[in-house]
């Protein structure tokens, strides 16, 4: 694309400055990028070769989830999913509150809805794909997408109250171990099979990361 000055960095997608809460490293990346302003001809493509702190496999901390999660073979009905999700969120709530108190910040909020209502909307759609949007000015497709992002953010922030988890550890935990992850995998399947083209497109591409797509049930499998 030939931008005038670009700094290539080896960091994970979504982390252009490297690692959270590493101000010295972030500043080095920023200064390195801005130093390219001194170049008198271009386009410039410079390399920043240092890996982000904590990003190597040997840096993983052995992070463990702060609460006991439902076993994988638990009730697979929609009512069972609702009950497990509610139970899981109740158990995680103190950890979310603790993180909020420590950080004084939350990234939950794109759906502009209570997090329990966001979880309920996801379960409602899995049960009945013909439901209406709960928001007068946003279509159902957007409300589902935003509810998904808020639910993920809420879980990540609750998990972060327990220090040490890397991005990949938290993603694996969410998509492989939590009831919320299972609900979103089922949601993606339900959305992908929906006749509404916008919902279908979001369900196919924008709910589950490609790295976890293999866990999406191929057909609706919740009784």
């Amino acid at each position, binding site marked *: 694309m030939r931008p005038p000055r670009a700094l290539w960095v080896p*960091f994970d*997608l979504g982390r252009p400055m490297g690692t*959270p809460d590493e101000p010295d490293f972030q500043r080095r990346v*920023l200064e390195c990028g*801005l130093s390219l302003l001194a170049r008198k001809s*271009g386009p410039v493509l410079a390399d920043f070769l240092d890996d982000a702190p904590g990003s190597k496999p040997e840096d993983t901390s052995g992070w463990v989830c702060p609460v006991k999660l439902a076993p994988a073979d638990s009730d697979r009905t929609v009512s069972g999913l609702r009950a497990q999700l509610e139970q899981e969120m109740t158990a995680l709530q103190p950890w979310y509150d603790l993180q909020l108190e420590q950080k004084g*910040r939350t990234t939950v909020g794109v759906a502009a809805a209570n997090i329990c209502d966001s979880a309920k909307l996801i379960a409602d759609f899995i049960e009945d794909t013909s439901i209406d949007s709960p928001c007068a000015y946003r279509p159902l497709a957007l409300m589902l997408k935003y509810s998904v992002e808020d639910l993920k953010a809420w879980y990540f922030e609750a998990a*972060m109250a327990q220090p040490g988890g890397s991005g990949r550890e938290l993603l694996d935990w969410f998509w492989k171990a939590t009831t919320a992850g299972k609900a979103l995998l089922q949601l993606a399947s339900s959305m992908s099979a929906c006749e509404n083209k916008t919902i279908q497109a979001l369900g196919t591409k924008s709910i589950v*990361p490609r*790295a976890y797509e293999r866990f999406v049930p191929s057909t609706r499998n919740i009784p």
Partner: protein
Amino acid sequence: MVRLSDLSQSEAEHLLALDCPQFADSPFADGPELKNARVALITSAGLSRRDDATFRPGATDYRVIPGDIASGDLVMSHVSTNYDRTGFAQDLNVVFPIDRLREMENDKTIGSAAGFHYSFMGATEPEALEKSARQLAGLLKEDKVNAVFFTPV
């Protein structure tokens, strides 16, 4: 941009298959000395103020982020789900290094931080953003910005 070898096979194959727009030239201009630079941040992370309109799929517009924004006032409505959001949840600066920029302003490494910064949603075809980009260039000039640090997400 992450090393392809650090991605899942499906993600790496997807990125390798993406069309990359070709531009005939590169808008290269001499940059200011850092101590005289007034720097704006522009990100494609889909950030918006909590009470501002969120981004929709295919969005070609942008959001204004005041220079004195508090980190808790920003949310992310990027349509893609294929990148890490846990870093942003932990520290805004991992996608939008506003605190680092303020530090550089305070210790006079740069001339000043801009009065306003900007956010796009990065899952839109780059060519579709030209109209907004040209409009934004005018706003940057009004703010006397002479350097931009762009963080792609």
